[in-house]
């Protein structure tokens, strides 16, 4: 299905409410600074295990989740989940404290980096098994359709399900998309195509280069989106979410993006050239939006500096919060395994 058919708006920067643009910029910058800080704290051994950073992919989570109504819509992703958690409105303190394994963390220190949840904000995780969130997201969409069909809701909540270019070859993807389409479950399947699964380039493990072609195999609409442009992501997802909420027909969206850091903190990323990384950094979603806003005169350098300083303070405060938070009690290992 083409852009045109979908009718995605292509607005000039000045057509947007500056407050809205500022929020997009702020939200992306918050993720960037949070991830930089998480990486730094990992380097200081304050954080351990797998820590998958989102640097470079900010426009994907911010642009798409910005198109949701989280009072009824839902978000699920994999283990690279800090960005989505922040985009859902979780406070940096909760997330940083979770990375520290503290009892004040969003999962009381039991989940860690790969398992950030906020049930109230409809951030449903955070999953460490590649592709495993796809059937779960499909089930949440099923629940939205279930209540709609039973006449309990006027329209359907939409579930955004994020996964990587590596996850699309899992059987869970195939089974879920067929289920979603035969029952018209209001889900949008978003491939965060950052060109690599760990050290493996997409072309080495995929028979196709653009994943939206797979949509046809499920009689589903599909589209490719530039994930370095937060406004393109936002406008496209806004149109899609509107459609899905009305007709329940799920979408497959291939969002091209890039991760600046290694797969996880332990990956030196020798499998790609500095030139390639730079070519993407030159399209940095934050820098791009900032430039456009400066040119349109809706942002000033000093205004940006102020914003950045505020964010850095907020992130630093989350570190302080995490460090000063208590460890969970040892007896807590027997809690949260079962509901009463």
């Amino acid at each position: 299905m083409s852009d045109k058919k979908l009718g995605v708006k292509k607005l000039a920067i000045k057509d947007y409410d500056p407050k809205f643009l500022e929020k997009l910029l702020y939200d992306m910058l918050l993720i960037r600074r949070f991830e930089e800080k998480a990486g730094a704290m990992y380097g200081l051994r304050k954080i351990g295990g797998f820590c998958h950073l989102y640097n470079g992919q900010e426009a994907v989570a911010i642009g798409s989740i910005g198109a949701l109504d989280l009072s009824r819509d839902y978000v699920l992703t994999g283990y690279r989940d800090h960005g989505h958690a922040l985009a859902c409105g979780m406070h940096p303190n909760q997330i940083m404290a979770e990375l520290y394994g503290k009892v004040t963390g969003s999962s009381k220190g039991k989940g860690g980096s790969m398992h950030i949840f906020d049930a109230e904000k409809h951030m449903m995780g955070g999953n460490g098994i590649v592709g495993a969130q796809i059937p779960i997201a499909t089930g949440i969409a099923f629940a939205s359709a279930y209540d709609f069909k039973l006449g309990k809701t006027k329209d359907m909540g939409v579930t955004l399900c994020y996964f990587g270019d590596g996850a699309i070859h899992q059987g869970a993807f195939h089974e879920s998309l067929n289920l979603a389409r035969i029952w018209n479950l209001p889900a949008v399947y978003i491939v965060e195509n950052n060109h690599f699964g760990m050290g493996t380039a997409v072309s080495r493990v995929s028979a196709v280069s653009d994943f939206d072609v797979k949509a046809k195999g499920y009689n589903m609409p599909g589209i490719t989106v530039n994930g370095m442009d937060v406004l393109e992501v936002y406008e496209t997802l806004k149109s899609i979410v509107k459609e899905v909420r009305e007709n329940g027909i799920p979408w497959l969206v291939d969002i091209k993006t890039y991760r600046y850091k290694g797969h996880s903190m332990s990956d030196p990323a020798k499998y790609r050239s500095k030139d390639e990384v730079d070519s993407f950094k030159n399209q940095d979603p934050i820098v791009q939006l900032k430039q456009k806003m400066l040119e349109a005169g809706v942002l000033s350098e000093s205004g940006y500096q102020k914003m950045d300083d505020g964010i850095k303070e907020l992130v630093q405060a989350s570190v302080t919060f995490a460090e000063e938070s208590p460890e969970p009690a040892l007896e807590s290992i027997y809690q949260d395994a079962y509901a009463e």
Partner: protein
Amino acid sequence: MALITYREALNQAMDEEMARDDRVYLMGEEVAEYNGAYKVSKGLLDKYGPIRVIDTPIAELGFTGLGVGSAIVGLRPIIEWMTMNFGILALDQIVNNAAKLRHMSGGQLKCPMVVRGPNGPAEYLSSQHSQALASYFAHIPGLKVVSPITPYDAKGLLKSAIRDDNPVIVLEAEMVYGHTGEVPDEEYLVPIGKADVKRSGSDVSFIAYGKPVLLALQAAAELEKQGISAEVVDLRSVRPIDEAAIYESVRKTNRAVVIDESWPIASIGSHVSHLIATNCFDDLDAPVEYVSCEDVPMPYNHALELAVQPSVEKIVKAAKKVLYL
């Protein structure tokens, strides 16, 4: 009291719970229009309609994970696996999500979900279709696992499972769907985690769950003719296990035979034997005897498949062994 089949008991449990709570829905292969491969869901589509009684494609991993997702946002799915053998394809969603989402979210989520279907061998089905997989589920913290073998327990335990806020695996048995038994006319529940003494005796304790309970009862009747009084403890739940009930029986008889249709290594049966040996160390007059499935894949030939499974003869022999007869 009404005399109904095990199949009808399961059907009544689903019917009653679907009637009282519209969060409950049934999903699986052939559960709707075909009324279930084993007719357990007979009539439910007509009564509750296609929104709540749903036929799926053959995609166990997908629709089981779908059930998990729907459960963490408030629905109460009953997922039918045509047989437990096929659930191996969906195990990741059970082990890594249903059983762990609550824990990984620090208690934010709950996963009120039932997964049910026949477990263990039927007849003439060879290796892939004749597996007793209870140990796979019992091994996993975060799950509950029940194995009713009478219509009474089937109805009461399935109702409890549907009302439970945790993922519960309900192990049924194809060979007993047609068995009849009495169930009360009024509503009742059988608590998860409570064993039931299906026959009391004084000389030896038979500890079993699922189909082997019926063999144990036959063996006990057989032994009675020979003047031996055997007690039969039906665990009914294998996670959690009602350890107190096991020890009470063994401390009375001082002799135990554990029967499990699973393969022996790393099984529920050998775990129960371990529990008895370590907790009733001074009470045992003989080593626990363990009658399990032979440690081989199930053959197709009927004489062979019977030889591979626990039998009345094997149980009687084991009982005499612990009685030094």
